[in-house]
């Protein structure tokens, strides 16, 4: 039975991620190698935003970057994959969406909770 909904959103300036892309150390703290295989600023900014949004929606600590993987389905929709360490027992389902414009990447994550 669905007991409630949580939502999280985040916005990030794409240029700031571009700066981060100069530091391998910083990148490796946030992105999985699979996410880095497309080394494109907009793409990475979107992943960054959606992970931050997921922290908010799931109530995760702010350094849980590598516990979430963002995968793109063949038709371009992003999908969140959670590490097993994140307790998903009370999650019914979740969804996310990413958008870019005006030098910004924006993302929103919704989580449906169940008993």
């Amino acid at each position: 039975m669905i007991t409630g909904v949580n939502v999280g959103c985040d916005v990030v300036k794409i240029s700031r991620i571009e700066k981060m892309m100069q530091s391998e150390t910083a990148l490796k703290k946030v992105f999985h190698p699979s996410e880095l295989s497309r080394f494109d600023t907009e793409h990475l900014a979107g992943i960054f935003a959606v992970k931050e949004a997921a922290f908010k929606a799931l109530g995760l600590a702010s350094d849980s970057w590598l516990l979430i993987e963002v995968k793109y389905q063949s038709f371009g929709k992003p999908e969140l994959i959670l590490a097993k360490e994140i307790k998903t027992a009370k999650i019914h389902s979740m969804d996310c969406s990413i958008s870019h414009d005006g030098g910004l990447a924006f993302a929103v994550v919704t989580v449906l909770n169940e008993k």
Partner: protein
Amino acid sequence: MSKGVKQTKLFRNIQDYLYSTCKKYTTRTVFIEKQKYRTKIWTFNDLWDKTTQAVNYIDEKNLSKGDKIIISAPNSPYWATLFFACAIKGVIVVPLDMNSSVDFIKKAISLIEPKFIFFSKFMPQAKEISSDVIYIEDFKAELPTVPDTKLARANDIKPDDTLLIVFSSGSTGDPKGVILTHKNICSNIHSLMEYMIIYPTHRSVSIVPLSHMLELTCGLMALISMGASVVYLPAVKPRAISEALQKDGVNIIIAVPAFLQLFRNAVMRGLEQKGLAKVFQKSLYLSKPLPKSVKRVISRVVRSKIGKNLTEMYVGGARIDESLEEFWNGLGISVYQGYGLTEASPIVAVDSPKPKLSRAFTVGKPIPGVKVKLADDGEIMVSGPNVSSGYYRNPKATNETFRKGWLMTGDIGRFDDDGFLSIIGRKKSMIIGPSGMNVYPEDIERTIREHNDIKEAVVLGIEKGNDVVITAVITLSDKKTKPGDIILNTNEHLASHQRVQEVIIWPDDDFPRTPTRKIIRGDVHKHISANKSSSGKANDTRNGKQLYKIIAQVANKPVSKITSRSTFVNDLGMDSVKRLELMAKIEDELGVVLSDSFVNQNSCVADLEKQIKLFKGMAKKKGQPNWPDYKTAVYFRLLLQYVLFILSRSFQKVEVEGYDIKQFDGGPVIFIANHQSHLDAPDIIKVLPRKVRTKTSVAAAKDYIFGNRATGLLARMTFNAFPIDRHGNIDESLTNIGKFLDKGNSVLIFPEGRRTRTGEMQEFKHAIGVVAPEMGVPIIPIKISGNYDILPRKQHLPKRGKTTITIGEPIIFDDDSSYISITDKLEETIRKL
């Protein structure tokens, strides 16, 4: 001068050089490639094989003789491999400094017309250049998949074929590309082989960028031609260099004076903190007349801070202060100064360790085969097989610099009575920055004048203590313009070593000029220098703690605004992006790995300092002892293990199924297994072939097994165990695992992190997903069943029973999977065994 000649044969071309070198030193180490957690050793044979593969790689890219490529990437064995492969194919390499501005890179591209540009992914400029970019990281990843079919011994590369085009300065004006042939470089290597004393036991760490001839010819090619080895760091940072000096047996370095200065400061800071600076200065003075060996004994304690093996430093690129040379010589670390320029491949003269060829504070004598004479005004003129034929597509500059077979260096020099050369200064106005990079004021002036509000500009190198400050003196057409804005505006268009550090507004309406309207630079310089010393600005940046500097940089605030009570979120405005940047910087520069999670709404700088202290305290204890590797310890371990096996036989029968490990012959691996009981580790060890068993270490919980001294010691004795942190600090665990793999040991890990409570396998900790790809070794999965019934948690005596150990096929992961999917896959695999 030909006394003590080691080698008489001159290499015909780079292939001849590389082939002869690699076939001479075969299985000796040539490169030590430091990765974040692992250290990869390249032998000379490996270098030849990889170069062969790289030749095939550039064949696949349709590059052929006479084509050009640009390389702008951090120093690494792959840089070297790509360069050698191009040299063998006759492809001309154009190395560019990684700090070149986008403008400069674009100019170089339009002049050179390269077929490909090899950039590092992490260079911000790479995104601005759209055409034919190949990331060197991709080259590295693709190389293993390229066949290494044998190369023809003979090739059609002639000594006079072009090998390199090297830009002699990062100038924003019209770049001048120095043409260097195979003969130029080979002759310079040959001369250095006669003049330097290098043995295969020598090991250096690569510091100067390979885009500079000092590093390419001397730091790479000359050193390895005599069998020496070179350490390449993942990033050339002071911390990484000092770690290499201390732990990787580096005994020689080739560097620019700025580096020697940096390390002197570090040594002196350490002594000052202990209140020993004065005693040290005195002993330095008193020990002056003593021989090097005695000095080294006296200075042992001080040297141990910078690496006790370091004995020699070759310095080039800029003049070195006499006091700096004296300092290092006083410690028993010999400094040899050299003189060279890109146009001379680059070495012209060098102070040699050979007694008759050495004199302190000079650049030694011209190297064999190179002629040096002084013009009437003292300008140094050079001729020899190492001298370039001229600048690429620039006959005007070529005619000015190369006259009747002589290279006009523009430097003023002097010979003493015994023929030792000293450099007095630059003939032209050129500024030699402290990093040894040549800065041409004219280029910067041209850029400044593009600013509308500026009438005229003169750029000078103003000496301030030991530093040279690039100072722009300007006259304004609009008096309201702020100098700060001008700097910002100008520096954006300049390479980092060219950036203006200070702006001064000239007090009069115009500069002093000659009758022909030329600005008299000398007068401007005199005036500015005089006023500088009287204003006597204090240099306060050095007192600021490094951490505060890092925080200030990331927060984009002045250091003075940061106190121990500044809060990250409110006072410093650090959001998640900035905090990540901060953590990455702290990791790179201080070597402290922190997680962002401790930062909350109220945490302040003092909290961060506490965390760093905590980490450093733990890091001190992090080192693993050596004794488990001693032969006696290994035999004792085997004996203990046999005793255990015999004991366990009384209640337990162990059966093995699945993959036969004896088939596997690929160096160290990581074994992972589910965890049912304390019997798991001994049982797995038991079924391994003896050869593997003596070289297998077990990862054991830091807080459980190593929480108690006795159990920790026992675990080390019986299983060569090492601690792994199951709560958080993954970096420390990765470092430990990396060290054991580097020693050639395989490692056994239980990814569940603890024994099962129910008999069911638990979820794997996601850390195993990071371990697998980061370590770059195959994973062998193992499933254990039966041990839960024999000796579960909370039970002290075993029951009788049968244990089955099922071994799976080795798994190798791609470089671009996700840590989560790897964890899941490993868990799946073991479940299905």
